[in-house]
């Protein structure tokens, strides 16, 4: 595809359930990033991948959050035992190569997660 795609676009879940969010980066982009935007807040970094490895997981808010990337392409962000404060828009971005300085990140449309 031409851009970053994310699925689902919207997700409503009950507190305590697990959710999986998916990101398909731009073809050929080796770097992939996850961010989230809570209501009334700016965008907050969660984790980034260079290939299949995650050099920086510093933004993951708790051990309920995990992410993986396989084949250097698709990534899934998993939130276990969801809490109401996890409600946010989860955004994925990709760039050609995180090891190259000054790479522009291109964002997907986001997944809107609501935890009831």
């Amino acid at each position, binding site marked *: 595809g031409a851009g970053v795609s994310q699925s689902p676009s919207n997700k409503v879940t009950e507190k305590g359930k697990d959710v999986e969010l998916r990101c398909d980066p731009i073809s050929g982009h080796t770097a992939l990033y996850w961010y989230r935007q809570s209501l009334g*807040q*700016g*965008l907050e970094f969660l984790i980034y991948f260079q290939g299949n490895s995650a050099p920086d997981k510093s933004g993951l808010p708790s051990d309920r959050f995990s992410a993986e990337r396989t084949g250097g392409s698709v990534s899934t962000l998993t939130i276990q035992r969801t809490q109401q404060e996890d409600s946010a828009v989860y955004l994925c971005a990709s760039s050609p190569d995180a090891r190259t300085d000054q790479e522009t990140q291109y964002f997907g449309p986001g997944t809107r997660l609501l935890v009831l």
Partner: protein
Amino acid sequence: DQQVKQNSPSLSVQEGRISILNCDYTNSMFDYFLWYKKYPAEGPTFLISISSIKDKNEDGRFTVFLNKSAKHLSLHIVPSQPGDSAVYFCAASAWASKLTFGTGTRLQVTL
């Protein structure tokens, strides 16, 4: 600790006039700065960027200015158009790492 700040939450400008959006940062390690535009229910769209070795970058109606000594950058939109109405985010990175975003400025271009 807000490393990137956009102190104006909103801005209203008349169509045809100049829009100036401001951004301040505190981390001197930042070497790449970007502006993104965001419409409701969409992801941020890249607008324009500037490297720390430059003080100006222009792309059509959009110009970004960087003042490293003041740790300040600004985005100028000339002339402003109604379709420019959106939330604008300033972002910065240090050596190809995560982006640190400001909280955004909502621009309203009026007729």
